[in-house]
C-alpha cells in the first residue's frame, strides 16, 4: 500500500479488517462443512478516491462488496465506516447508514423492478429516509436526478423495459444517488454494456465523483476500465488478496503470477495499439 506518512486514519472513509465469509457446503448430515469464500481480506479506501477490486468468478469480489454494503454479515472481521465498525452501531444507526453507502449492480435488466415506474424507483429511497417533505418535492428531486444523469425528466412515468441497457444503468445510478450517499459500491457497472455506452457511463461516474467528492469501490475484471478509473487496486484470487498497490505500479510491474496472468490474458488497448 502506498500510504504516505502524512495520512491519518481519518482520511480513510472505509476500512475493511480481516474480512472472512464462510458458506455451508453440503457435507454429511452430522458434519457441517464450510467453504471459505472470502479469506482475511483487509484494505482501506481513501475519501474521494476509487479503489478497484479485480478478480474473476469465484474470487469473492462480489461477496466483499455485499459485506461492505451491510447486506451480508461477515463470518469474521469487521468493517469501519468513518472510523466506527458496523457492529458497534445500533440497528437504527445502521439503517441510517444506508443513506451513505449505495450500490450499482452489473445487470441493468435485473437491477430495476420491472413493475415499478421510474418515479417510484427513484423516490423509494426518499420515502424510506424521509427526504423531501411531500410527494411533489420528491418528484422534483427525482426529475433533478434524471437531469444529473443526462436523461429527460419525462422518463418518470415510464417503465424500465422501455429503456436501453445504458439508460437503465443510468437510472440505477440515479437511484443510488437519490439518498445522497458518500460511498458507492459499483459491481461491474459497465460489463454488460456496449463499448460506446460504457464510455458514456464512465464519464458520468467520473463527473459525479468530482462534483460530489464520492468514494468508489469499483469491482471489475476489465483491466482497461480499472486502469482508467482507479487510483488503487487490489487483486483477489479465490477469496484472498494476492496483490495490491497503486494502479500504475501494479499494472506495469506485477509481482504475483496471477496478476501477471490477468495482464497477459487480454492485452490492454495500449499494448494492442502499440503492436
Amino acid at each position, binding site marked *: 500500500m502506498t500510504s504516505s506518512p502524512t495520512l491519518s486514519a481519518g482520511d480513510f472513509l472505509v476500512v475493511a479488517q480481516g474480512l472472512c465469509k464462510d458458506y455451508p457446503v453440503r457435507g454429511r448430515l452430522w458434519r457441517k462443512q464450510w467453504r471459505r469464500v472470502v479469506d482475511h481480506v483487509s484494505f482501506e479506501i481513501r475519501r474521494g478516491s476509487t479503489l478497484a477490486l479485480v478478480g474473476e468468478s469465484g474470487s469473492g469480489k462480489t461477496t466483499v462488496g455485499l459485506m461492505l454494503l451491510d447486506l451480508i454479515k461477515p463470518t469474521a472481521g469487521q468493517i469501519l465506516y468513518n472510523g466506527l465498525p458496523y457492529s458497534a452501531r445500533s440497528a437504527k444507526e445502521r439503517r441510517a447508514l444506508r443513506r451513505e453507502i449505495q450500490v450499482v449492480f452489473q445487470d441493468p435488466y435485473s437491477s430495476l423492478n420491472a413493475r415499478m415506474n421510474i418515479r417510484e424507483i427513484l423516490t423509494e429511497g426518499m420515502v424510506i429516509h424521509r427526504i423531501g417533505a411531500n410527494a411533489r418535492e420528491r418528484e422534483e428531486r427525482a426529475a433533478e436526478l434524471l437531469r444529473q444523469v443526462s436523461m429527460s425528466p419525462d422518463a418518470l412515468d415510464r417503465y424500465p423495459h422501455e429503456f436501453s*441497457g445504458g439508460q437503465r444503468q443510468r437510472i440505477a445510478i440515479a437511484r443510488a444517488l437519490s439518498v445522497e450517499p458518500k460511498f458507492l459500491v459499483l459491481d461491474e457497472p459497465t460489463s454488460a454494456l456496449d463499448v460506446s455506452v*460504457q464510455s458514456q457511463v464512465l*464519464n458520468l461516474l467520473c463527473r459525479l465523483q468530482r462534483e460530489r467528492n464520492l468514494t468508489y469501490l469499483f469491482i471489475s475484471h476489465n483491466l482497461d476500465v480499472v*486502469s482508467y478509473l482507479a487510483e488503487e487496486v487490489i487483486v483477489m484470487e479465490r477469496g484472498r488478496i494476492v496483490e495490491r498497490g497503486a494502479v500504475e505500479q501494479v499494472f506495469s510491474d506485477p509481482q504475483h503470477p496471477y496478476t501477471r496472468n490477468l495482464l*497477459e*490474458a487480454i*492485452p490492454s488497448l495500449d499494448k494492442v495499439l502499440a503492436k
Partner: protein
Amino acid sequence: MNNPLLVVENLRTYFRTPQGLSRAVDGVSFTIDEGEILALVGESGCGKSMTALSILQLVPEPAGYIESGRVLFQGEDLLDRTWEQMREIRGKEIAMIFQEPMTSLNGVFTVGDQLIEAMAVHGKRGNLRAQAIELLGRVGLPEPERAMRQYPHELSGGMRQRVMIAMALANEPKLLLADEPTTALDVTVQAQILDLLADLQRETGMAVLLITHDLRVVARLAQRVAVMYAGQIVEEAPVKELFQHPRHPYTQGLFACLPSQMRRGKELNSLEGVVPSPTAWPPGCRFAPRCSFCWQPCLELAPRPLTVANRHTVRCHLYDPEIAPTSVGEVRS
C-alpha cells in the same frame, strides 16, 4: 490460402415485428478464404449474430426470413438448400458455437453422450467413444475419460466451452462460426479458449468467422476484421491495418471511447446518440446522425464500399472521390 470458402453476397435478413419491418441484416457482403479467420465486430443490435444464423438458415421463424442475397459455400448457394439439405451442412461442413455454453448443452445428458451423438448423427463410423475421448483431450480437458461421464453443470464455464468446441470439431468442419465464444467467460479463461481456437485452426486448417464486440479479442485471434453497424459492414481490413489506420468514423469512435491507462483523467470520447431502430434506418448513411464529419451528401446518399488501401474497404463518403472532391486522406480522432 486464397481460395474463397464462403462468399456472402448482399445478404438481407428481415423480421416482421409489430413495429414494422426490421431490417436486421441489410446488404452484408464478405468473403472468407480457406483457413482464414475473419472477425465480425459490432455492438449489440448491429446484426452480426443474425448474419451467422442466416448462413446456416437458422433465422427464427416465422417472424424472420432471408429476403435476398447469396451465401456461396464452396461455390454452391446454401440458400437454395432445403431444411433437410441444410442438415447435411450443419455440424458437418459448417459448425457453430455460441456464447452461453450452459444453454447450448443439454443438461440431462452427459458430455460423452452428446459428443457421441454429434458424431453419430453425421454418420461417423468406428469407435465413437474413443474418438470422443481423443477430441476432449485435444480441446484441453485435463481428464477426458472422466469428463465423458460428467454432466454439463458439473463443469466450469471454460470447460463447458471446450466441450462445445469439441462437439463443433467432431466432424471436421471446414468453417467454424463462433458467436461471442468467450464473452461469458473469465478473462484468463478467455485467453485460454482463444489460444485453443488458434491452435486448432492451425492444425485443421479450418476457416473461422469470429463474432464479437470486443476489439481486444479481435486483436488476439483474427487475421481480418469487418466492422458492422446498423445491419451493414462499414469497414473491412486486415487486423493490423484496422487498428493502426481506422478510417470509418464509427470505427474511429469505437477506438476513441475505449478506456485505457493513457487516457486517465481525461474525459473519454463517447459516441453521441444511440443506434437507430432497425425498423427505421435513416436514409443516406446510417451513421450520419452520430457522425462528427457528417455533411450534406451523408444525409441523402447511402455510401458505397470503397477500397482505400490494400484489402481495406470503407463505406463512407469521406473517401469517395466523386463525392468528396478534395482528397481527405486519413482522418484521425
